[in-house]
């Protein structure tokens, strides 16, 4: 009898892991002369639970939502139904992937994707005739 219950809980844990829910964070993306900027809303993500990776020109942003909830909380209403955020972007070749900077503060991630020197915008002088 006891054995059966134990197996049940194991299965419960397994399905729970499969059903990890991923949310798409809202982002702002803009470009300036020397870099692309990505700002993402990721409330509940800490510096430790955030993973940023560039692999073959794909930038992936992932973060687990860490919430300190007291034990025995039962839900009554939920608009955020997920335990992690994830989003991917393809980068163009002019981004210098080695010098990407990231910072997360109050649940807002800021990424600076610098352009390679050779790809920066140049101003062209217009000479008077």
């Amino acid at each position: 009898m006891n054995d059966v219950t134990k197996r049940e809980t194991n299965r419960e844990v397994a399905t729970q892991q499969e059903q990890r829910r991923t949310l798409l964070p809202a982002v702002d993306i803009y470009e300036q002369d020397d870099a692309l900027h990505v700002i993402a809303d990721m409330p509940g993500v800490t510096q430790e639970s955030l993973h940023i990776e560039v692999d073959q020109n794909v930038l992936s942003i992932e973060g687990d939502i860490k919430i300190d909830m007291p034990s025995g909380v039962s839900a009554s209403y939920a608009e955020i139904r997920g335990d992690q955020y994830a989003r991917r972007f393809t980068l163009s070749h002019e981004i210098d992937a080695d010098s990407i900077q990231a910072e997360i503060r109050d649940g807002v991630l800021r990424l600076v994707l610098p352009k390679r020197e050779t790809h920066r915008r140049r101003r062209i002088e217009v000479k008077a005739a």
Partner: protein
Amino acid sequence: MFGDLWRSNSSRSADFDWFRQVMDEFFPQATSDIRSVPRGTFPMINMGRTDEAVLVYVFAPGLTSDELDVSVQDNVLTLHGRRSPVAEEGEGQQRAYYRQERFSGEFSRSVTLPDGVDTERAEARATNGLVEIHLPKREEMKPRRVEIKTA
């Protein structure tokens, strides 16, 4: 983390949820709470309860404590504030936007709390853009164990 929270909801898949949302929009015969707002309204809220308290989680990324105003009147919790757009660093530089999905500007949202909450003892604390509002239940609303006496 919010595994328990979403499991309490009837729909199991996000696709189904989306479908239901579309259905609700086209066939609005179902009654909805007078204070309900469309999905995705900033800031998003989760609510839970324990035997001791009602917990409200406000997803307010990038808001400092003076940018978010939390108040309770009767049984209505109101969140009011303003989220400023991205700081203008690198002034003078041209800025071309590709995506602008993040909310900015003024917001005000109210939610009805369950009965029996002691609003006097409410506390709120913010971590990583998430504000937890702890509203203790009044003594008489807490579950009570009933002793069974032997005859």
